[in-house]
């Protein structure tokens, strides 16, 4: 018999009003507090530790210190607030953001083996609560939003490669899109970039799809193009990675110009 999906496991635990953690294969962990999700972490998305470090408010060592100092009652979040690292509202906002980001990827991860550990808590503590149906609805909305933005998952797992030249003369970017393009080194995937920038993986995926829809990313056909065509007998050197496009002229335009010149000369 196939193992129950994460959806089914969480729905069951919500019915039982459970408190504890669900380990989702090797993908991550969902923490429940009295039947509601209070935190989630995923191997794919930056967790609260990475987000805190990336914000520059606290060092990685600082986060480790707080984590170790947090007691069995999981008061790590309160310690961060008391130390003045971030405000109560910012703590709640980042906990809920990280939880949704991780849940989105965990719920997409098929049916890995889930193991429930009763009474287990995350060191940060519980600062925001998602009821299970609400969490599922939001993850569904996010999936639809990705599809609406750019209906292809083609670029989701590939290195982000910006086009070398704009199709037009002007482009408008959001702050997140800008960061993404600056950080893109043609080897990092959207998930790699999210981690590097300390941004939610979902937001990065969405930005990648927006950039793709705007024609600012090289799609795979173009990335592969230099490798695919066979070398011609006496073709030009093909080893340069930059591929300046030959000027495309319409022959009818040339004819028109010749006729124009002739007409002008005849005057």
């Amino acid at each position, binding site marked *: 018999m196939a193992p129950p999906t994460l959806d089914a496991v969480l729905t069951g635990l919500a019915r039982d009003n459970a408190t504890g953690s669900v380990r989702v294969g090797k993908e991550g962990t969902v923490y429940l507090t009295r039947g509601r999700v209070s935190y989630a972490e995923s191997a794919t998305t930056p967790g*609260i530790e990475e*987000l*805190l470090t990336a*914000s520059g*408010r606290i060092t990685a060592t600082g986060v480790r210190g707080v984590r170790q100092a947090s007691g069995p009652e999981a008061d790590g979040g309160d310690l961060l*607030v008391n130390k*003045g*690292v*971030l*405000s*109560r*509202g*910012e703590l*709640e*906002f*980042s906990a*809920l*953001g*990280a939880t*949704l980001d991780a849940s989105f990827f965990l719920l997409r991860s098929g049916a890995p083996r889930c193991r429930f550990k009763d009474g287990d808590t995350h060191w940060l503590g519980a600062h*925001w609560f998602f009821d299970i149906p609400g969490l599922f*609805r*939001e993850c569904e*909305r*996010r999936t639809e*939003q990705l599809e609406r933005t750019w209906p292809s998952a083609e670029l989701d797992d590939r290195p982000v490669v910006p086009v070398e030249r704009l199709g037009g003369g002007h482009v*408008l970017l*959001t702050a*997140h899109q800008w960061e993404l393009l600056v950080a893109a080194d043609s080897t990092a995937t959207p998930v790699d970039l999210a981690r590097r920038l300390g*941004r*939610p993986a*979902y*937001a990065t995926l*969405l930005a990648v799809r927006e950039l793709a829809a705007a024609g600012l990313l090289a799609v795979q056909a173009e990335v592969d193009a230099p490798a695919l065509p066979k070398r011609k007998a006496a073709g030009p050197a093909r080893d340069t990675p930059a591929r300046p496009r030959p000027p495309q002229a319409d022959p009818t335009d040339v004819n028109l110009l010749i006729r124009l010149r002739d007409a002008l000369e005849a005057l």
Partner: protein
Amino acid sequence: MIGIEGCLSEVMSIPGALDAILVEPISGMAILGKGVPDPVRSAAGLTETFRAALEGVAMASPEGTVRIDDMIITTETSYHLIRPIEMAVQGTLLICLRMDLERSNLALARRRLCTITDQLTDQLTAQSTAQSTAQ
């Protein structure tokens, strides 16, 4: 210092408030609403409004980029106030408030939103926070 729920209660206590919603504008997610019939729909619409304003105003500015402090939209019956807040760890949060045109005071509401923003991100001194919480 107030949390997210406290922030929404404070916003709804502004004179003339009809409904309010907190939105995460990058994913377009409704975080918490009060008096809003369809939070998902409102969040999507307000995110679009905010983003369109950012892009449009950026194009109309000589610098080509802008930071919006707040947006005020006046309709036949109400004011919509949208205020982005820079949060330390996860980017921006939008406070969106709809107020009755007749029963509200725009200047007062903007000042209150400013104070609430500071309380949410802990920009006030400990003393003035204590005072405003006591109110």
